[in-house]
């Protein structure tokens, strides 16, 4: 009786270790990040996001305008506009500091496209929204705080 019990336990223990080894080998970092392999969009901190976009933390510029509400009642739909007066603006990225993945979207302009766009983004909570602008190979940024109210009861 006891012997048999031991065998069963051994068999279970063996299978357990085997299974653990398999799963250890199977779960590669690539699979964990399979949801979005693009490095820019997996950044968890501002510095990581800026690094992935190819710049150290850039200087703030008054020539970038972020159009967004001071208070957004619905965090799922926050209208955000970015306009840049910096000559030769090539790219714009919109970042939300307190979202799980900071970079919401990046835009690249053709030569006749005006650096002035609007879109709608999601915000999990009150946060600074950053606009990162690349012009003539240099980076600039602006930020604006957007308060997100929960349940629409203000405050």
């Amino acid at each position, binding site marked *: 009786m006891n012997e048999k019990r031991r065998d069963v336990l051994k068999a279970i223990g063996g299978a357990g270790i085997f299974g653990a080894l398999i799963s250890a080998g199977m779960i590669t970092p690539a699979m964990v990040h399979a949801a979005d392999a693009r490095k820019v969009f997996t950044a968890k901190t501002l510095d990581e996001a800026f690094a992935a976009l190819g710049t150290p933390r850039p200087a703030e510029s008054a020539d970038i305008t972020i159009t967004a509400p001071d208070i957004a009642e619905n965090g799922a739909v926050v209208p955000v506009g970015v306009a840049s007066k910096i000559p030769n603006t090539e790219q714009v990225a919109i970042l939300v500091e307190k979202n799980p993945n900071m970079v919401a979207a990046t*835009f690249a*302009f053709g030569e006749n*496209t005006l650096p002035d766009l609007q*879109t709608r983004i999601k915000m999990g909570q009150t946060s600074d929204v950053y606009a990162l602008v690349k012009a003539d190979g240099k980076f600039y940024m602006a930020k604006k705080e957007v308060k997100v109210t929960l349940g629409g009861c203000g405050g």
Partner: protein
Amino acid sequence: MAGPMRIRAAEKDGIVEVRVLMSHPMETGQRKDSSGNPIPAHHISELTAKHNDKVVLTSEMSGSVSTNPYLAFKFKGGAKGDKISVSWVDNKGESRTDEVQIA
């Protein structure tokens, strides 16, 4: 599935304003369904807008763009009747292209 995009392109004083409303769930991958299982990410990842086959705007998006994404942008050099086409590809490989003429 993904329905057609609504695109408006209007020319005024040499500047064309294009407004696009896409139809897409834009699932972040962070949400859980009612039984607690994570809902897999499903969002537009790349967008390209063209004016007569010349690219005027490209975008890379994450799930942080709102459901049924809206995008408005402006460019110079378009004329009434020119073709505007907008295409997107999502993270599951689905894609869609729609066209309008500048009004």
